[in-house]
């Protein structure tokens, strides 16, 4: 799995390419820690190339929700495949983590915050 990050205006974009599992989730953890310490407020996760997610990947997203709330940081995922979205849905995480269709919608949503 490869993670790329970039800044677009006010948005911090995280692109995930590959499988987010027990072996690779540490990379997402490191990326989100850096985003928090850099005080990024609007995080957009591009899941176009996210092929697979296991509980380890879900767990990393979950573990930052409290800090994001305390820091007034917003996070949105976009372009999540059906099979990956279903994994979020099994645990009801689709109600706790914002998932939208595309980057435009993600930026529009975060611009209002």
């Amino acid at each position, binding site marked *: 799995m490869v993670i790329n990050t970039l800044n677009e205006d006010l948005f911090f974009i995280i692109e995930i390419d590959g499988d987010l599992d*027990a072996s690779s989730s540490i990379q997402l953890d490191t990326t989100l820690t850096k985003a928090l310490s850099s005080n990024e407020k609007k995080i957009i996760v591009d899941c176009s190339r996210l092929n697979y997610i296991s509980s380890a990947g879900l767990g990393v997203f979950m573990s930052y929700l409290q800090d994001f709330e305390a820091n007034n940081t917003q996070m949105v995922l976009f372009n999540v495949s059906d099979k990956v979205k279903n994994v979020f849905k*099994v645990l009801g995480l689709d109600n706790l983590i914002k998932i939208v269709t595309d980057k435009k919608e993600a930026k529009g949503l975060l611009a209002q915050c």
Partner: protein
Amino acid sequence: MLDKIKIPCTTENLKEVRKFINDNLSKYSIHENELNMITLAVDEICANRIIHSNKSNRDNQLEVEILNNNEGLVFKIKDKGEYYDNTSQVDPEILNLIKDKRKGGIGLMLARKIMDSIEVKKEDPYTTYTLIKKLKLAQV
């Protein structure tokens, strides 16, 4: 096609297990989403065994076998790591995990929600998990 795979106990090898399951089940007409869920359940149990029971020791081996019977698919996950039976453990509350900023603790819960049954047995020196998914199997 092989219906059994052995991997060294490191999480880097989980993708080999997923590939093995996907390749093996490609002969059946299973919807992509359902196949992903089945793969996920096996992956979760393997990850738990590798990390917690085998301490990611690559000298230890983990075996995954796929069988089918009249009711559906049976997965056997076998290794010589530390035995524990967490199948009667109560599922954690997601909101509590978030509050505690915990990254772990949902793998078994996911596997339980996907599979119809999960059993663990100690057969010295092995611990064997048996996962059953009831499914009408049709060849492609």
